[in-house]
């Protein structure tokens, strides 16, 4: 697979969600990030194992190589020499600085603001050096300019598009000039874009493909069909399909499924506050405890009743793994203290409930105590696999005497944070809810910080925050505070595991499946290395056509 640039003709990629823009700073959506990663690149990115690799930078700065200051407050990036934009102009540290300015400009609504958190300035001592200064010590200083979320954009192109003017620069947002292997030729929002090989790409002979068509829209099944069964496309992204369906498609022999595991965990959250509509504006407020989910034995029984192996097999097959942690990866953060959850134990669950005094006194098949019936409303977003999960779990819970009512809500509403809507996952006006979350990159600090008491969505904070179960534990909050000031990786791992174990052993969060990302590519497409820590298309420059 060596040869001149553009030798392999066209590669066709299908994403069943279409990118709406090619500027990742204006949309944080995965589809936009990944589409843009063909064009614009960061200084460093993660490889398939989650390790940082230098990309536009010479090397990844660390404390060891002196790139990161001892006080963890500055990080110095050195650009590879001789890099040029696709328009032929040189890439300089000014562009790096500009990318920061662009994202932090007032009124621009940058989606990646968090990446540049605590950055006070970016210095450009010379054309190839960019020094990032933080206001606080950053044990993990690889937010800015790293990964698909924080690429470098060209100052010359975007200089007039700062702040409130950002949305008006349609041409720029649809066709950013980049350093990546491809150059956009035609972008149609929410539909398709085409790009051709970047003549100025830094590596000779790459990319192998002369052009790429990036089509969006439809659904996962259709995308899978296009790769596996009709062979119209070479690469299909994120085929969230039932394993038997995927396997059936693969039988046609044109394509092949690939999977990789990141940090995504499908989980159930158990609400600790009372959401009875009768409470009016006191619904879900801390201080109104849930009538029975505050009883740990109920939560434990509900966890024990679940057959995670079966769920995973039905819903994800080989693209899902069993886990008993909400923090399953990277490996050093993964706890093994909770593995008892792996086996379903209906009888045990019944026993736990019995012991806690939850019995079926009125003979309706569901347990109760002191006039309180174990009856939960179980919500999630609309999605075939989630609905299968719901159906199975409902059956198990009802078996142990917990009445379960299912509800599924349109994703645009469920994951929205419209304070006016009662159906958002943050408001959590239900007893139980289920969704998947993960964290970017490899550092779990921000992720674990989501379950501190002050992160609980409450009316006082317009229902923002990630602690949807409204879990409050002083012990947990203390661990989180400690982690914020700990730099050592092993120590950080210990803290993260401890926090994970609290959540698990309190049964506030019931992890169900460690979800892998699975995509498919044509058997004739070589060089694909599925990456869940960064853009899936991170190495498209290395892709090639297998003759035959």
């Amino acid at each position, binding site marked *: 697979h060596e040869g001149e640039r553009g030798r392999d003709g066209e590669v066709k990629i299908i994403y069943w969600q279409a990118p709406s823009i090619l500027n990742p700073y204006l949309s944080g959506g995965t589809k936009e990030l990944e589409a843009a990663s063909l064009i614009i690149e960061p200084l460093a990115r993660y490889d398939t194992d989650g390790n940082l690799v230098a990309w536009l930078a010479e090397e990844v700065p660390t404390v060891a190589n002196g790139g990161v200051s001892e006080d963890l407050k500055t990080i110095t990036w050195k650009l590879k020499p001789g890099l040029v934009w696709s328009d032929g102009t040189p890439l300089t540290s000014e562009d790096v600085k500009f990318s920061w300015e662009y994202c932090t400009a007032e009124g621009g609504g940058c989606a990646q603001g968090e990446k540049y958190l605590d950055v006070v300035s970016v210095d450009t001592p010379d054309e190839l050096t960019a020094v990032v200064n933080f206001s606080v010590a950053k044990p993990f200083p690889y937010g800015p300019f790293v990964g698909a979320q924080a690429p470098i954009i060209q100052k010359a192109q975007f200089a007039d598009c700062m702040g409130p003017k950002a949305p008006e620069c349609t041409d720029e947002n649809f066709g950013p000039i980049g350093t990546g292997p491809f150059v956009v030729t035609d972008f149609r929002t929410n539909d398709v874009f085409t790009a051709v090989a970047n003549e100025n790409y830094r590596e000779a002979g790459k990319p192998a493909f002369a052009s790429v068509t990036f089509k969006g829209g439809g659904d996962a099944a259709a995308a899978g069909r296009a790769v596996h069964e009709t062979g119209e496309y070479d690469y299909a992204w994120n085929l969230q399909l039932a394993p038997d369906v995927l396997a059936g498609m693969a039988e046609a022999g044109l394509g092949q499924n690939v999977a990789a595991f990141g940090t995504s965990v499908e989980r159930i959250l158990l609400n600790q506050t009372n959401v009875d509509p009768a409470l009016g504006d006191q619904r879900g407020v801390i201080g109104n405890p849930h009538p029975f989910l505050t009883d740990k034995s109920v939560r434990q029984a509900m966890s024990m009743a679940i057959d995670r192996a079966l769920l995973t097999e039905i819903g994800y097959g080989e693209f899902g793994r069993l886990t008993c942690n909400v923090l399953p990866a990277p490996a050093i953060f993964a706890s093994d203290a909770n593995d008892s959850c792996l086996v379903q134990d209906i009888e045990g669950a019944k026993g736990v409930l019995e012991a806690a005094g939850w019995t079926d006194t009125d003979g309706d098949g569901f347990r109760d105590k002191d006039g309180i019936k174990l009856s939960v409303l179980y919500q999630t977003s609309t999605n075939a696999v989630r609905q*299968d999960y719901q159906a199975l779990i409902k059956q198990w819970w009802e078996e142990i005497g917990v009445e379960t009512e299912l509800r599924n809500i349109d994703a645009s509403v469920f994951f929205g944070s419209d304070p006016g809507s*009662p159906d958002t996952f943050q408001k959590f006006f239900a007893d139980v809810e289920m969704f998947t979350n993960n964290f970017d990159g490899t550092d779990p600090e921000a992720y674990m910080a989501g379950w501190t008491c002050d992160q609980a969505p409450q009316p006082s904070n317009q229902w923002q925050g990630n602690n949807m179960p409204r879990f409050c534990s002083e012990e947990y909050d203390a661990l989180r505070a400690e982690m914020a000031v700990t730099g050592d990786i092993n120590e950080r791992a210990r803290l993260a595991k401890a926090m994970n174990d609290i959540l698990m052993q309190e049964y506030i969060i019931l992890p169900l499946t460690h979800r892998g990302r699975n995509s498919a590519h044509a058997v004739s497409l070589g060089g694909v290395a599925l990456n869940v820590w960064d853009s899936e298309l991170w190495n498209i420059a290395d892709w090639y056509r297998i003759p035959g």
Partner: protein
Amino acid sequence: MTDLTNVEMEVVEKPRSQWRDVWDQFKTHKGAVAGLSFLIFITLFAAVGPFLWDVDPGRLDIRNKDVRPIYMGLFDSSAKVSWANPMGTDNLGRDIMANIMQGGRISLAVGWTAMVLAVVLGTTIGVLAGYFKRLDGLLMRFTDLVLALPLLPLLLVMMLLFRDPLRAAFGPETGIFLLIVAGIGITSWMQTARIVRGDVMALKEREFVLAARSIGTPARRMITRHLLPNVLSPIMVSATLGLATAIITESALSFLGLGFPSDFPTWGKILFDSVDRMTSFPERVIWPGLAISLTVLAVNYIGDGLRDALDPRIRGH
């Protein structure tokens, strides 16, 4: 002639009720009779079936998943078949027959209720607009307005505003049922309204309406007695199409993720959920697909037959 026959002659000629006549006329329409038979069958299947076929449609039986329908055993001896699941099971081992029955209950109920709602709304608005000239402009603009309303946001708003109160008042199932029915009903009456309005305007010029006015019949009875019976046949056509549209719209809502909760099978949803596995398990799309199509067809033929049967001119003597 004897006195006896004279007395008999005096008796009003009414040995048969009007409904007998309607039925007799209806019977002559072969399609209508076939349609009615099918509709009765499918209604019984959905309504009474679950009592005879006592399997919980929501019960999962993972060991018995992907069972093929019983007839598969005939030409493929290796097929996984079982008399316990004559129509097969789905990927979670739910019995398809039980689901089709339960789905039929919901689909038929949604279809009928939404259709009745749409027809009642459409007829009321059509009659009012056609009969009262003053209301005409207003009502027709209103019709335009509703025609222009997008169904999806409308349903989202309705869900937001009414789901919790309805759930509190009627329970989760009935609540969402009412919402969906109302959503479909409210967005599909416009065609009926237009047609009825046109017909009423034409009827208003007919002499028998003038005759009724010369008697002093007030507007209310003018409408119920003279206009409505005479616009019955276009209403019937709208109704048959309306039933079909309602069943299909409900399935489209499932496609868009706005339908019933996932543990509520409807024909449309069963069909939609099975499309991905269409090649390996064709029966899963055939059962609900047939149920929908044949119901629509049956209702259409019944509509034709009823239209003829309700028209005294065609019915004859």
